[in-house]
């Protein structure tokens, strides 16, 4: 039975939770669809993306927000990025997969990832600024997928 996950947050800890659940569900034989909206689009950003002409505010957003999983902060005790670094170190010590590894595993397991086009427009992200292999859609696509699923999470 399908599981759908709305990933709204762009925090490292919450992104980890979303991808651990997605990978667990896929390993249990379920179809999984992840719908990335708003801050969560930062998880999908390429560290180096082609430049685009953007409005002043979109340029500011783009410049100030994290470019990809390696740059994400944690939702508590981030301390300007130090917290995230320490969290990553502790997780490595505890043999927890990194977010990058979990994303890769999710792809290998066929987890479907959809980027919200409305949020992309708001934040000024073009398709080539996000990683490859995504689908691009809106709320109706999410709701259509949610209708076919028995679990839907908002993270």
């Amino acid at each position, binding site marked *: 039975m399908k599981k759908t996950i709305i990933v709204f947050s762009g925090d490292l800890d919450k992104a980890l939770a979303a991808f*651990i659940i997605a990978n667990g569900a896929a390993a249990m034989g379920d179809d999984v669809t992840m719908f990335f909206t708003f801050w969560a689009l930062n998880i999908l950003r390429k560290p180096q993306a082609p430049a685009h002409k953007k409005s002043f505010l979109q340029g500011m957003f783009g410049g100030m927000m994290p470019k990809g999983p390696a740059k994400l902060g944690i939702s508590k005790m981030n301390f300007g990025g130090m917290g995230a670094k320490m969290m990553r170190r502790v997780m490595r010590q505890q*043999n927890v997969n990194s977010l990058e590894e979990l994303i890769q595993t999710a792809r290998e397991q066929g987890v479907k990832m959809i980027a919200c086009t409305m949020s992309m427009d708001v934040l000024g992200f073009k398709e080539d600024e996000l990683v490859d292999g995504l689908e691009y859609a809106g709320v109706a696509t999410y709701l259509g997928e949610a209708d076919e699923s028995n679990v839907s999470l908002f993270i």
Partner: protein
Amino acid sequence: MSVTELSAIQPQKTVDARGTSCPGPILAAKKGIVEVKVGEIMAVLATDSGTKKDLPAWAKKMGHEYLGEMEESGYLKLFVKRMK
């Protein structure tokens, strides 16, 4: 199954998920189970203590039979019989 019965099992395949944490052992089980035939037994080695609960839940969901687990020195050995 009792530990004595479990220790007598000669699994057709052993997957080593030691050192990985959630959901690593389940991912390893998913990859490993297709490499044994229906009716054969796979052993999973794991250090993540949650695997004791997670692997039976996985087996139930996937329609396989969970036979049990035993403590080895510093890790768990868990047995699943492929049923379909």
